[in-house]
């Protein structure tokens, strides 16, 4: 389970930060807790909207991709801090990443109150409609007289306190699971995915019809695109466009690039459509994703869920075997989120591959054979209802589907389409 921790202080020294760090290191077997920094977040001001600033977008991204949030609040003047309140105001103004997010509150204070009033107040704030977080009820963790609570290595000294904190965190981990299971699929925000690519990103070529069969030629002319023997500087190397094409078209993978505006802008045209594992035709390049999928609402919903899960970082990759795989052929569509150096989402890298030749080659080389495993569970979690679970459609050597490791795909109906392309 992935949690993020926010210490509600921008002071250089903060016992609340020390408390969260202690939880992150000491309870790493319960959850993966990443500390988020709020130091660079400006004081909220509705007349000077900073929602798009790096500091706030960073928090948004991290919170959206986390299963839950732990907030450690100091107490200033009988309430939580202005710096923490300011962060919550930013996260409830134009964006709402805390909506429906499970939250656990802890707090430390110099005096024996242990931030009790700040915690109560924070609860009230987090339940305001614009924030709409789901705060773990009860289970108050109040760390009073904090100056004497930690040893020189920043470990909590009192064993009873450690045990209580651990049991509280255990309850929170369960709470997170329950709350996130309850979430209605439409709450994922996937509906907001614009498959028509009506938006615009910095690389969108304007003034060229995305539906045009010669979009590539038109867009290339408009952008004075490099071609043929023109050199392209890459990370890491230098190739001409011809070399790049030869390289990509000889990959043992069918590659597709859908940008963050949901426009299908590239595939490696290695073979005519009828010989491809997932058919693409030259006139499709440039199309919005809505044009390269059937209008079936189930399919559309599924495509949106996959893209949104990748865009928001819920999963790094989604993999789906296609229906009709058999002992000689096991075609898998992999969808992987692409990011720039700053971690901004750049789109989906889809690669399609028949993995069976690789499996067979491996078996032959190592003198092994596939063996059925009666204990194997095909569907690992509620979030993994990918069509892969349909073992009857795959009749491998020993009647056990050699499934790739299950990825946490977004909730889908088992009978929905297998591929983003079909």
């Amino acid at each position: 389970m992935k949690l993020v921790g926010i210490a509600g202080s921008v002071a250089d020294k903060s016992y609340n930060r020390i408390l969260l760090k202690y939880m992150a290191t000491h309870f790493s077997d319960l959850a993966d807790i990443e500390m988020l920094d709020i130091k660079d977040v400006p004081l909220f001001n509705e007349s000077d909207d900073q929602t798009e600033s790096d500091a706030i977008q960073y928090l948004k991204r991290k919170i959206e991709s986390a299963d839950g949030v732990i907030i450690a609040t100091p107490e200033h003047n009988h309430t939580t801090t202005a710096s923490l309140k300011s962060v919550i105001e930013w996260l409830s103004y134009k964006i709402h990443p805390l909506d429906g997010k499970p939250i656990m509150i802890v707090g430390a204070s110099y005096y024996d109150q242990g931030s009790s009033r700040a915690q109560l107040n924070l609860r009230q704030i987090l339940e305001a409609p614009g924030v709409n977080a789901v705060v773990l009820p009860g289970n108050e963790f109040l760390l009073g007289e904090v100056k004497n609570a930690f040893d020189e290595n920043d470990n909590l000294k009192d064993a009873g306190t450690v045990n209580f904190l651990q049991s509280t965190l255990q309850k929170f981990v369960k709470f997170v699971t329950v709350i996130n299971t309850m979430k209605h699929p439409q709450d994922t925000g996937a509906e907001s995915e614009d498959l028509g690519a009506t938006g615009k990103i910095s690389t969108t070529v304007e003034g060229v019809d995305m539906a045009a069969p010669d979009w590539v030629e038109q867009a290339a002319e408009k952008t004075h695109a490099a071609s043929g023997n023109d050199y392209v500087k890459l990370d890491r190397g230098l190739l001409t466009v011809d070399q790049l094409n030869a390289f990509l078209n000889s990959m043992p993978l069918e590659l597709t690039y859908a940008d963050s505006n949901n426009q299908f802008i590239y595939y490696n045209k290695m073979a005519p459509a009828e010989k491809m594992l997932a058919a693409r035709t030259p006139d499709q390049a440039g199309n919005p994703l809505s044009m390269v999928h059937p209008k079936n609402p189930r399919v559309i919903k599924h495509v949106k869920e996959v893209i949104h899960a990748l865009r928001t970082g819920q999963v790094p990759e989604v993999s789906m075997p296609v229906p009709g795989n058999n002992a000689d052929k096991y075609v898998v569509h992999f969808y992987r989120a692409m990011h720039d150096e700053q971690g901004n989402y750049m789109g989906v890298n889809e690669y399609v591959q028949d993995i069976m030749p690789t499996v067979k080659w491996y078996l032959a080389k190592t003198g092994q054979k596939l063996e059925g495993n009666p204990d194997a569970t095909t569907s690992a979690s509620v979030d993994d209802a990918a069509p892969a679970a349909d073992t009857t459609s795959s009749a491998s050597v020993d009647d056990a589907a050699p499934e790739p490791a299950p990825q946490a795909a977004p909730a889908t109906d088992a009978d929905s389409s297998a591929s983003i392309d079909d």
Partner: protein
Amino acid sequence: MNKFVAMVGTNAKVSTNRTLLQFMKQHFADQAEIELMEIADLPLFNKPENSPVPAPVLAMAKAIDAADGVIIATPEYDHAVPSSLMNALEWLSHRVHPFVDKPVMIVGASYGSLGSSRAQAHLRQILDSPELRARIMPSSEYLLGHSLDAFDDQGNLKDADKVAQLDGLFKDFQTFVTVSGHLNNAKDLNQKDTKNFDWNKL
């Protein structure tokens, strides 16, 4: 004539809470001298250990010290006081303590019907803390709901009942300031306590 500081509880450029205080300044001009105070110029409070108190904070503390009372108008963000007002109060309770025993009247306006009720309760709790120790006028609340429609073009409150209510409360506040002046037996001790209060010595 009493002198009051009227603190605008937000850093927003446009606020009906500012409009409300501007109305009070002009409406009560024959009863008291009201000076508006903005909180937008303060940095984010980070509990600085050694750096000097910022100049705008010192200026605000000085003005509050010199006033007979403070009127605070608070909006409500997320069921609570805006962070910008919390921030101002954090600065005004860190090495300077102008609110100790200072009479305070709380008012508030909101776009919805509740008139910042939760923020006002929150603000009371904050002003009662040991490093602020303000004297908040008890049993009084001025909640101005639907504030976008509450004022006419000249910035006057349109609803006569709302004006009458404010008139009454303001008179009470003047009396409260007088009464508060007599509640001075613990004043020296309070001020000493607050000044000497040091979280690091607990």
